[in-house]
């Protein structure tokens, strides 16, 4: 079994329900996120469009974070999930530096690395990840990539040619796919981050782990 995730960006409406569900389910502290939805505006008024991209850990088949972790706090589960043992983590932040997707953060409460685990604790109880349950339009599709009859496998088959992953050139083989994505949604260098241009705040960076 190799669990994977797929987000159909054509369906996603940026409601952030998944983001909130994740926060609540995993008790993710303030100023940190396991899952977030990024808005990117493209074009010039009146010819504009707004895109929504949920971003989480890609659970790579060849995960740089697992390789660099000195104490195997980041490790693979048999189902392909890249899990984290927060009791073992020493907080070296090597994984934060290695992850090409910026998916790992230092939990300011435990001072250890943390990230999306595809809700491994729920999966172990045969439940879907919290973000999948919360999505009102079923844009999040989760399942076994090794099972040709699973929803995710069928979705990938139907959308052949329109499936993308983030930064494929990194050779990490993500187990997280997007449908109807583009350069501006998946490539952080393709969009500008203008100071003070965000809708709700002007804070662009936060201290890692709440100190240093």
């Amino acid at each position: 079994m190799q669990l994977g995730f797929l987000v159909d960006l054509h369906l996603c409406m940026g409601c952030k329900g998944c983001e909130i569900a994740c926060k609540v389910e995993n008790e993710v502290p303030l100023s940190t996120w396991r899952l977030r939805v990024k808005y990117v505006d493209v074009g010039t008024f009146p010819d504009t469009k707004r895109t929504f991209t949920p971003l989480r850990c890609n659970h790579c088949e060849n995960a740089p974070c697992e390789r660099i972790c000195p104490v195997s706090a980041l490790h693979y589960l048999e189902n392909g999930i890249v899990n984290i043992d927060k009791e073992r983590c020493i907080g070296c932040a090597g994984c934060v530096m290695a992850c090409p997707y910026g998916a790992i953060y230092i939990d300011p409460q435990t001072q250890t690395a943390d990230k999306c685990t595809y809700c491994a604790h729920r999966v172990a109880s045969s439940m879907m990840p919290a973000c999948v349950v919360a999505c009102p339009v079923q844009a999040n599709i989760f399942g076994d990539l090794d099972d040709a009859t699973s929803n995710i496998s069928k979705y990938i088959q139907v959308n052949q040619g329109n499936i993308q992953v983030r930064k494929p050139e990194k050779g990490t083989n993500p187990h997280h796919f997007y449908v109807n994505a583009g350069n501006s949604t998946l490539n952080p260098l393709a969009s500008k981050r203008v100071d003070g241009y965000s809708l709700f705040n002007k804070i662009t960076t936060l201290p890692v782990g709440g100190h240093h």
Partner: protein
Amino acid sequence: MAAHEILAATNAVVTLDVALPGIVWPWLVTVNMWAKSIGTGVIFMLFLLIRKYPEQVGSLRFQTTVVSIIFIHIFLLFTLADLHQPFRMWHIFFYPNWTSAITVGAWMATLFVGLLFLLAYLSFFKKDNVLFDKTLLWTVLLAIPVTLYTAALMSQATARELWQMPTESAQMIFAALLAGSAFMILLGGKKLNYEAKSSLSNILALSAFMSFLLYMSEYIFGPMKAEEVAAVLEYIKGDGPYTVMFWLGQWIAYLLPMLFIALSRTSQSENLLKLAAIFALAGLWLVKHVWLIIPQLLPMS
């Protein structure tokens, strides 16, 4: 003019996102690399001096060992200080993950410290130079990977395209040679004659030249390799926030020491060599810091 009015039609702008994490590996890691360069570099230089100028080394055996112990412990202390859970450091020894350069480095550094204390014992208590010199050979051999492992760690941070093997390895070994020769010129005092110091200054000048060459090749040709490298190097070009610090580092660590060493050749001035050494040591910190920070400024997602 409002920000949105100056954006071209094809531009994409992030209009809602979380605040991104700031610097992950801060100046503590710079000190780590800087101190390790000195701690291993002086061991290289001691080995060289024993081979080339055995009659002048004398008490430098013990003094150099003490300097190395001090700087390796500064390196270890700042490594520990940078951990968010420093009291769990022992996990590295009980739950080692051997694919991690951090694990390999921690074990090698521990062994290196053990050999340094053995050297200190042999030179201070046993006063056995023959055994010291034999042990030093093994210490030098271990000092090479101890210096290089940080390069492996940086290249293992695959998200940061700027840090690549083997360029970082070369930078690390040149940094150790530069720092070691500079510190030994200062430590040599009256024990080393001008000829010995001149040999050390040759190493200093050569390693400064090679380091400068590597940085310039990255600076000029790096953007041709990858979009990410081009974006990172923008932080040290033009109005980039680290442009001044980058060039200040290049001048203080490499260009001015080379100039001072060249001038000392004509005047036989030891003071100019000392000045070159002080500049090289101070500049190395700046150079290392800039190279550590700039890839961390780029948003990963």
